[in-house]
């Protein structure tokens, strides 16, 4: 308890250091006053980046040790606290592995974009760990996951059907994040980051309210953001499902007590399954084959539709938007200039050059939106195929793609407790 109080004090102290930056217009007539030169204090950014990487590896190492070797949850709680305090409140949620997807995507298509090493490492290290040990990054190293983990009080399960449907969102979100990043339109993962407003103690009110709703939900539903929104989690789930060292509930034989299944807040433990439905094998196989045949059609359909909407999507790009504004202004030159137009004309912008840029962006959108459509069709098709496969399970099994390594299930397992009577399960 004493430790908790000390930690809480440190936590609150850290919060106090966050100072919101306000912009305010300068007086708009001349008084002869000369503004002093602005000097921005340069923090020890290089050192902090090293600390970031070191801490990232250390914390993922601790989580891996805790869930693979020791099967205990206590270190994960501490890792979560450190992650929220350091990566969240101290580093203001940036660099963030989730957002790094966009930097990587942009660097892959644009050779002029300089990818910082720290961003590369923040992207690649959790992937590497996921391939080795599962989603240990999600367990408590990711400040978003950690924040949800810390606020989670009691688990109420969502209907599985709903979970399956919502589980498609991260993939779609990932596809759109990549599309917007490689077209240099926007880093939407950063723009629509629901928790960064908390970590920075300020930001877009809409996103803060959205984050608040997610956190309230996280009180009773396990990690809603990680499961139903996080695009990086979707990516990690691929590697986690084929990880070398997998999280296991117990070394002893499962007695099918169902306790772990009920304890899992993210619904990542699959119960034993025996087919009770009166459906012929032939019909099931036929359905599956139908979906395999339909898969290319879904892909084509996705590509076609995204191609159709690509011009509309491209309007979120600043160059395309500016071009439209300029064209509007050229049509009605007397209208009051917007800030964007003032900047454009003020900097001697050339309409033809802007038109070329806008055309290039639209052409990029036509191409990449088609690819995005292919991927969306693929996601829907594969989901339908997965849902058409009957798998027989005799014991409770961890779905390693969905498991975030929170380690709640260990203490519930009676077989585990036999060998760990002294284990503290209070957390």
């Amino acid at each position: 308890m004493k430790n908790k109080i000390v930690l809480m004090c440190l936590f609150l102290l850290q919060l106090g250091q966050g100072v919101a930056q306000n912009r305010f217009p300068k007086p708009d007539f001349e008084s002869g006053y000369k503004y002093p030169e602005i000097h921005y204090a340069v923090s020890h950014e290089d050192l902090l980046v090293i600390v970031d990487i070191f801490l990232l590896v250390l914390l993922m190492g601790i989580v891996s040790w805790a869930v693979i070797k020791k099967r205990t949850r206590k270190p994960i709680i501490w890792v979560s606290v450190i992650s929220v305090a350091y990566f969240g409140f101290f580093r203001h949620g940036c660099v963030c592995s989730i957002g790094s997807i966009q930097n990587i995507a942009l660097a892959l298509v644009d050779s002029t974009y300089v990818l910082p090493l720290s961003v590369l490492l923040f992207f690649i290290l959790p992937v590497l760990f996921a391939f080795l040990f599962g989603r240990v990054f999600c367990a408590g190293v990711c400040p978003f996951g950690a924040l949800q983990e810390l606020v989670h009080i009691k688990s109420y399960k969502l209907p599985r059907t709903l979970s399956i449907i919502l589980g498609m969102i991260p993939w779609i979100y990932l596809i759109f994040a990549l599309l917007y990043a490689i077209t240099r339109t926007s880093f939407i993962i950063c723009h629509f980051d629901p928790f960064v407003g908390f970590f920075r103690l300020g930001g877009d009110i809409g996103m803060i309210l959205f984050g608040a709703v997610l956190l309230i939900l996280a009180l009773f539903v396990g990690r809603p953001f990680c499961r139903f929104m996080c695009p990086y989690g979707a990516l990690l789930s691929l590697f986690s499902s084929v990880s070398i060292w997998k999280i296991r509930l117990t070394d002893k034989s499962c007695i099918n007590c169902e306790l772990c299944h009920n304890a899992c807040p993210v619904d990542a433990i699959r119960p034993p399954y025996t087919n009770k439905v009166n459906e012929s094998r032939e019909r099931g196989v036929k359905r599956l084959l139908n979906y395999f045949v339909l898969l290319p059609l879904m892909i084509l359909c996705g590509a076609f539709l995204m191609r159709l909407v690509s011009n509309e999507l491209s309007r979120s790009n600043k160059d395309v938007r500016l071009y439209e504004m300029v064209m509007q202004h050229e049509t009605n030159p007397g209208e009051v200039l917007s800030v964007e137009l003032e900047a454009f004309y003020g900097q001697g912008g050339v309409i033809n050059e802007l038109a070329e840029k806008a055309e290039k962006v639209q052409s990029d959108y036509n191409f990449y939106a088609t690819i995005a459509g292919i991927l969306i069709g693929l996601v829907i098709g594969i989901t339908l195929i997965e849902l058409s496969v009957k798998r027989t399970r005799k014991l409770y099994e961890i779905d390693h793609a969905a498991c975030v390594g929170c380690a709640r299930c260990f203490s519930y397992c009676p077989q585990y407790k036999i060998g760990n009577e002294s284990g503290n399960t209070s957390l």
Partner: protein
Amino acid sequence: MNKLILRNIAIISALFIVTFSTMLITNYFQVRGTTPLQTEVVETLKQLNDENNGNPALQEQIRQLDLLARKAYFVRIDHLMVGVYILLGMLAVFLVSARLYFVRDKNIPLKAIDQMDEWIIKSKARKYVGWIASGIAAIALIFVVLSSPYLTTTEAAPKTEEGATAAILPETENEPEQINPTDSSAIETAEADSSKLPADSVSKQIPVSKITHNAFRGNNSNGITSAKGVPVKWDLGGGTHIAWKHDIPRSGFNSPVINGNKVFISGADEKARELYCYDLTTGEQLWTLAAVNIPGSPFKMPETTEDTGLAASTVATNGKQVCAIFASGDLICADMEGKKLWAKNLGMPDNHYGYASSLLSFGNLLIVQYDNQNSPKVIALDMATGAERWSKSRKEKVTWSSPIIAYVNNKPQLVLMGNPAITAYNPNNGEQLWRVECLSGEVGSSACSSNGVVYGASEYATLVAINATDGTVLWEANDYLPEVSSPVATKDFVYLATSYGTVASYDSKTGKLGKVHDFSGSQFYSSPIIAEGKIFLFSNDGKMHVFSADAEFKLLQSFETGENTFATPAFTDNKIVVRTEKSIYCVTAN
């Protein structure tokens, strides 16, 4: 700790959090909506300060109010931040107490939430996924259909043209295309009522480009257009790439302007002065408006030279009204359907060649450069009513140049060439911004601008580059100078054409002479227009020259059209409208 105490702490802190969050959100929106420096008092004082040309006592008062407002704002922000810290503290209390309350409770439900078989769950999920995917696809399709420009224009425009194509005028999209038959001033009308057209022509409607050419040398009269797909070669005699061609009822040296699907020109002779409107797509003459019954209009037309005439000034439109001025000083303005809105005579201009300055539209303002011997001035009129918004007398001698709008440091400047100065005004109120005395003789060509620099040139004077932020002269050159044709500038080069057949380029930053093309025997009265990185320029003998608007300044095309051309062509997407000595024709890329 007692579970009951923990529970109560959690409940109380939860209630506190809910109440406090509501207060904070309310406070946030109050602070966000506050613009302390734009209060009525401060704004009024600032206006007074502007009018009084800087009253130190007033300025001090504004500063004090400004400081007070800033203090108040930051205090509120600080309060908000304190509130956030308190909220976070209470959140921590709630979480710790709630977690401790539930710490010993094992999450062991008595029964699973999904009682049914996994296969049934999967089947349901499959069904929902299918529905959702189909729904998203349907929404995407609806979205595409609704955002289609074809659908928008078809719905919006009730009018079509005869033949295979018809077009839509965005500005009048909800109004029927017709002329007021009771208006006696409308001599000739051409109705384009869709009810009289075959039904299939509606389905063949094509959208009209939004690229307008609202005045002499385009919008802002700057010689640059955003039009795309502009044709670079045509054969007027053979009809290749010629959409239509018509003789013009009365002569004039003014240039065509384009807005939506309408083309406007004017013509005049001793008998009448008229404004014409043509259909851009078909070339059909839609209406004619005569300048008649104008109070103060001279009974006898002024003497003009043959190469100026009574209709040398190009008309101007803003998409709602179109105005034309003649050498008699008669100014008429009509709506886009040809209905006369107003007309007035500005006083017979004392001009030995004939009045030739073109009109310029700036929003709802009509700018008239009226530099004559008797009372040189620049006037801004309301295009809808003809009411004078402002007028400034000028110290210039008679001029044939036309006004332009230059955007400098985000703000529009009205730039006028004259003898002896190039002068910039605020187009909204006529305030003089700067004046550079650098010209002499008969100033016929107009200025151009690029990148905050105004370029002006006149024969027997100079080519001058002026920093339009402060009116300082950046450089001057006098190798080749235009007489009638106006220069055009990009950020790197200035291009001009002389009346003795030379087309030259200058470095816009240094004034160094670049590449020169010599077309011996030709004269250039028409002004160059830059479209899609190319310079389009007519010589008086009707030869079209197309150059690359870059450092190489290559001659890309040069071909005869067969008709003398003095006017500057008008551009829109895929089309060029050219006025020759006697006719008007439309070149199309299709």
